[in-house]
């Protein structure tokens, strides 16, 4: 009887410690559904739906957005999301880069088609957002910050607009050097 008295609280404490440890593991970088402010904690879906941390913690880490480097996640083979449902859908990958240089106070923008067509179809941007002709588009950072142009995705599902240097990545000096005879 005496033994039972002592062992029960000890095992209970161990269980609690484990629960606390689980809650504070790496996985706690992602907010759990029942406390995310959007899901109803009383919904029967809680406990059935996958928790973000359980899915995302093994993927290549990033510092913003979902804390996942989604392009690296495909390139590293960590995930291989389906490209199409219908067999007749054409799946295209385009691999050229565009440099958009205004020679202002910020470095020029390098737009890589590859990282974009890995996820998107041409029609997602052309010509809804951008004309499919180099030099034909006028880019505006204030439009982007207002959720237009690149801002349709960047700031919503792709890495957010706080990550300036990921797009503004080409020094103006290097471009001027290249253009010089």
């Amino acid at each position: 009887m005496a033994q039972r008295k002592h062992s029960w609280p000890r095992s209970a404490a161990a269980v609690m410690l484990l629960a606390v440890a689980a809650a504070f593991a790496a996985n706690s970088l992602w907010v759990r559904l029942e406390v995310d402010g959007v899901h109803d904690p009383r919904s029967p879906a809680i406990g059935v739906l996958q928790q973000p941390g359980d899915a995302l913690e093994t993927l290549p880490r990033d510092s913003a957005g979902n804390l996942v480097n989604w392009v690296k996640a495909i390139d590293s083979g960590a995930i291989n999301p389906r490209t199409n449902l219908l067999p007749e859908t054409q799946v295209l990958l385009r691999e050229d880069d565009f440099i958009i240089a205004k020679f202002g106070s910020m470095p020029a923008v390098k737009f890589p088609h590859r990282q974009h067509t890995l996820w998107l179809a041409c029609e997602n941007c052309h010509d809804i957002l951008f004309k499919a002709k180099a030099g034909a588009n006028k880019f505006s950072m204030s439009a982007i910050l207002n959720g237009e142009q690149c801002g349709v995705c960047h700031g919503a599902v792709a890495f957010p607009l706080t990550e300036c240097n990921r797009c503004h990545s080409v020094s103006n000096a290097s471009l001027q050097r290249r253009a010089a005879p």
Partner: protein
Amino acid sequence: MKHPAAIGWAALLALAPTAPSAEYGDVVLNRYSDKAGVRPVVFPHWFHRIRFRCKVCHQELGFQMRAGANDVPMADIIDGKFCGMCHNERVAWGPDRCDLCHSGKPGLRSGIIGGAQTSGPGRW
């Protein structure tokens, strides 16, 4: 009182506003749900993009890119359009599992979490 500080902290924790901190890219759909007496839908981009590239839903399924631009009535889903292209009991759970998608807090505003206005510098 024995532990006024502890009680103070507990009160503070209990009263602290629960700021929405849903996963980046989560979309709330509440055009019809509240009116129909069901919880709003929470669509998790993170979950879907592990399994499907953007182009599958945004080209093949016909979802426009901008949150709010899509009219997604339940009847269309049951007919196999939009979500119903996969949520048909073959690829993913069927439309009879109401609660799994309609899992949001009642009264939520439609829109995307993250978003140009809340995640980046946004509208100044």
